């Protein structure tokens, strides 16, 4: 199976119909295992039980960036390789990415609450994620603003790629801006210093969330393909029946005028 096979929407629908239940099943199992392990993980000596938010927060933060990566590749697919399903993939990924980013923000602010005393701190990491969230919303607004999906696709692809180049620059600027104003960030969770009892559940959760994204993404792509089919069927209906009713409408008006004339 290659990308070429997937280029045909009908084949894509048939194939994913078989894959999707397995993927969903694997997601549920891994999520259950991950959550169980997270519950068993010991409390942090400084942060107490709140550290467990990390098991949700980190996978969401990871996916918030990963999804933009997926959309960037799909955008290349739209602009360079003209892969017919690329813009479907890009469009379907945006709301899911926005949702993961939102969850990363939400869990981040809940996590920060006991430490900062406020729900929101202009912490460098959270702020970067907030900007990423805004860019997701902007992208979704762009998809919504244009009625014709193929026209919206190119604009969205350009914006996605520009975003992919700009995101590191934004991240760097925000870090610099943040250190300018406050010397040390409260949240410092270097991956390498993590204890193994944290690391394994975190990895399981990260994989589980990635599978969750794959499941949701494929399901959303299927919806988008079907939505576009409905759209083209509607357009065909608008034009096709018009031709066949052209003559009948004309004669109906003719009859009506004859009756009126007789009256």
């Amino acid at each position, binding site marked *: 199976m290659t990308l070429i096979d997937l280029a045909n929407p009908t084949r894509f629908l048939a194939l994913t119909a078989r894959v999707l239940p397995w993927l969903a099943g694997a997601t549920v199992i891994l999520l259950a295992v991950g959550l169980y392990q997270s519950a068993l993980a010991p409390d942090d000596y400084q942060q107490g039980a709140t550290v467990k938010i990390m098991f949700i927060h980190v996978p969401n933060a990871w996916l918030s960036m990963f999804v933009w990566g997926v959309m960037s590749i799909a955008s290349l697919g739209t602009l360079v390789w003209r892969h017919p399903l690329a813009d479907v993939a890009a469009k379907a990924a945006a709301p899911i990415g926005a949702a993961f980013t939102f969850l990363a923000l939400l869990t981040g602010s809940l996590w920060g609450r006991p430490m900062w005393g406020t729900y929101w701190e202009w912490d460098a990491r959270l702020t970067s994620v907030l900007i990423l969230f805004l860019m997701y919303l902007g992208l979704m607004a762009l998809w919504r603003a244009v009625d014709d999906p193929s026209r919206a696709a190119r604009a969205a692809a350009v914006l996605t790629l520009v975003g992919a180049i700009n995101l590191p620059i934004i991240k760097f600027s925000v870090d610099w801006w943040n250190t300018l104003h406050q010397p040390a960030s409260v949240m410092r969770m270097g991956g390498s210093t993590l204890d193994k009892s944290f690391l394994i559940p975190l990895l399981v959760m990260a994989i589980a969330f990635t599978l969750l994204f794959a499941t949701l993404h494929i399901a959303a792509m299927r919806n988008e393909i079907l939505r576009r089919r409905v759209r083209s069927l509607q357009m065909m209906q*608008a034009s096709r029946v018009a031709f066949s009713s052209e003559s009948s409408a004309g004669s109906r*008006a003719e009859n009506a005028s004859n009756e009126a*004339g007789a009256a």
Partner: protein
Amino acid sequence: MQLAGRGVVCVRGGREVFSGLDFEATSGEAVAVVGRNGSGKTSLLRLIAGLLIPAGGTIALDGGDAELTLPEQCHYLGHRDALKPALSVAENLSFWADFLGGERLDAAESLATVGLDHAADLPAAFLSAGQRRRLSLARLLTVRRPVWLLDEPTNALDVAGQDMVGGLMREHLARGGLIIAATHAPLGIDSRQLRIGGAV
């Protein structure tokens, strides 16, 4: 019912388009306004519709509803079709029916008459230029107005559509309405010609 204009002067952008124009139309009569491009055919319709203010002269409707002004008794079918692409065909039509008010007919029936009943639930964005024209015509059927002001009514329509417009106009005249139509093409019904701006 008689629509009459006396000594109407139209000035647009500092240029006098026409002046001293007299015209009249009575119930059951159609007037075809003809003239070369820029002679003021559209302007005349917009003057009657109250969308332009005459620089001189009067336009009045005798024998209409005394409570209503002339524009309120007119249907104006302009170049622009007053449709929202985001709304469905039926929503577009029922909005105008609700908003314009007065005596109204079944919207579904007028959609069928103009040949759009199959598209009622589709977004208006999917319609072709001719179909958009048909939908505008459905507005004229759904809401009753005695005076029809039609600007190139057969524009964008195919032959069957032009016949349909002819039928609709005859029906309207038979009901005692009157029609002022600006047109280049023959109107397809018996009509009095009103030539403005000299020879074609």
